[in-house]
C-alpha cells in the first residue's frame, strides 16, 4: 500500500552528541578489524578450523582471545542494534515510539552482552 505523506516536522532539536551514523561507522570500522581477526584466527590459524570442542576450549583459554572476543561481542551488538534502530526509524513512527524503540534496544543490547559474557564464563567453567 502506498504511504500517504504527512506534513513534515522541522528537524529535531539540534546536533546530538554523536550522530548515529557516525556511531555506526566507528563500530563498523572496529568490527572490520575484530571480525577479520575472529574469522582468520578461528578458521585459518587453527589447523582443524576450530570446530571441535577441545580446540574451541583451548582457544578460548587464551587471555588475548578473551579480550578480543568480548570486544567483538560488544561492538557487534552495538552495530547490529543500531542498524535495527535505523531501519525501524525509517518506518516514520512517532517520536514517542522512537524513544521506546531506543529504550527497548538498549535493554536488548545489554541483555545480549550479559548473556554472551555469562555464556563465556559458563563454557570455561564447564570445560
Amino acid at each position, binding site marked *: 500500500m502506498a504511504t500517504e505523506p504527512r506534513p513534515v516536522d522541522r528537524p529535531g532539536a539540534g546536533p546530538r552528541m554523536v550522530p548515529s551514523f557516525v556511531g555506526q561507522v566507528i563500530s563498523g570500522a572496529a568490527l572490520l578489524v575484530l571480525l577479520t581477526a575472529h574469522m582468520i584466527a578461528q578458521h585459518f590459524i587453527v589447523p582443524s578450523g576450530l570446530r*571441535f*570442542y577441545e580446540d574451541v576450549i583451548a582457544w578460548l583459554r587464551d587471555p588475548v582471545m578473551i579480550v578480543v572476543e568480548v570486544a567483538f561481542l560488544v561492538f*557487534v551488538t552495538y552495530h547490529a*542494534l543500531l542498524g535495527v534502530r535505523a531501519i525501524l526509524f525509517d518506518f516514520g513512527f512517532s517520536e514517542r515510539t522512537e524513544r521506546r524503540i531506543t529504550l527497548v534496544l538498549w535493554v536488548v543490547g545489554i541483555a545480549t552482552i550479559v548473556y554472551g559474557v555469562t555464556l563465556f564464563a559458563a563454557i570455561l567453567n*564447564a570445560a
Partner: protein
Amino acid sequence: MASTIVERGRPAAGPARRRGVLGWFDPRGRRLGGLAFILNRLTGIGLVAYLYLHLLILSMLVQGPDAWDDFVDVALSPPFLALDVLLLTGMLVHGLNGIRVGLVGLGLVASRQKALFIAALVIAAFVALVGALRIFAGE
C-alpha cells in the same frame, strides 16, 4: 489515426513502484546506489539474525564435548556448508560496502560511490569464491 479515450476508471493493482516500507526492497527502477542500499539492508538484517542464532548455538558448548561435536558433524554436511558460504558472502558484502558507506557517508570521497560499490562487489565475489572452495574442500 484519431486519438481516442479507451477506458475510464481502470482500477490498478498498485503503483508501478512501491512506496513506503516495502519500497526499500523493490529493485525496479533502482540504480546502482539504490541496489547497494537494498543489499546493505538485506545483508544487515540477515547478519543480525545470524548473530543471535550464533549466540544460541554457542550455548551448546556448555553441555560438554559430546553435544557439541555431534552438532559439528551435522554442521559439516553440505547443506550447512552452503549456508556458511551464504553467511560469508553476506558478511563480505555488508563489510566491504560498509567501507564504502563510511568513506562516502562522511564526505571523505563524496563522489566515488559507484566505483567503490563495484570494487566492493568484485572483492566480495572473489573472496567469497575462495572461501567457498576452502569451505567445501574441508581445507
